[in-house]
């Protein structure tokens, strides 16, 4: 019954690796497309609070970010919470101008959907946040998002 036992050679043929670059390229393109490069370097610490009722921020192109928290280089800048707009420290009075510039940078149709995401450190006091909110109201940027992490709810 050695019907199927043809050709005595038992050697396994070498697996062709010529398609390996293609596979790797495929993965590479996937990551290249999905990658969002971070455009600002954080100079304040923002340890976000956690909440359960969170919504996703969908279109990233119509979101502008305001960071508030203690400076990362606390030896130079102290530990008091500061505002960061783009790459620099800012004061409350700069916010209106920032909103106007952000609005200008967007397309006409997107402007009214512009959302301001507040990334605030959880230990920061509300005083500075309230000031920022008042400025946003003056600049008529009414849609805001308190950036929070999704809290994992324990099942009981």
């Amino acid at each position, binding site marked *: 019954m050695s019907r199927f036992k043809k050709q005595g050679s038992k050697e396994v043929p070498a697996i062709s690796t010529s398609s390996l670059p293609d596979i*790797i390229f495929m993965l*590479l393109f996937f990551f290249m497309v999905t990658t969002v490069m971070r455009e600002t370097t954080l100079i304040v610490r923002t340890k976000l609070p956690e*909440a359960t*009722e969170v919504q996703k921020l969908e279109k990233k192109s119509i979101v502008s970010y305001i960071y508030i928290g203690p400076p990362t280089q606390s030896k130079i800048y102290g530990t008091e919470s500061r505002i960061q707009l783009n790459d620099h420290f800012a004061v409350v009075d700069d916010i209106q101008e920032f909103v106007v510039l952000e609005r200008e940078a967007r397309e006409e149709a997107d402007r009214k959907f512009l959302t301001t*995401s507040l990334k605030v450190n959880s230990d920061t006091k*509300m005083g500075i*946040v309230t000031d920022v909110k008042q400025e946003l109201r003056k600049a*008529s*940027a009414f849609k805001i998002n308190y950036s929070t992490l999704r809290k994992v709810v324990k099942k009981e």
Partner: protein
Amino acid sequence: MARKVPQINAGSMADIAFLLLIFFLVTTTMDVDTGIMRQLPPPPDPNQDIPDIRERNIMNILVSKSDRLLVNKKIGNIKTLKNDVIDFMSIHHDDLAYPEVTLKSIDYIGDVYTTKGIISLKNDRGTSYNMYIQVQNELAAAFKELRDRLSMEKFGRKYDKLINEDYIDAINKAVPVRVSEAEPEDVGGN
């Protein structure tokens, strides 16, 4: 005269691709931004009168500078806040302890009773952001629950499972998120 070009060895192609791949793998951040959405009111008009709202229609929530809660002048608890808000904003007919109700007719739902209740949230400048977010979160949870209830009753599915935009709009109209944030002031000093 056509000369034979020697074949380029493509064996190292995989290595180069790997290198690039690892670079993108390391730099990629897959985090999705999440947060609590809120709509700020326009700045107050100095000529406008302060709207006269009856005492029974307002639920006052005050967060002190030491992160403690005061709900309608009584000490509150963050754990019971959600249920308190749901209870306050639910429909209670002819009960003086609760806000007034009005009959409204809304497209796709028909006639529903809506409450005139308003949550007034006030915080101190010294309140921590974390506490403020926890309170906002409880309020959001309470309103979500109220919307879920109405949605289940009218359309048979939960609010966030609704697909029809008109239905979502109708529920939004019937149960608006009525959280008023008072103009800031120093309540507790520093």
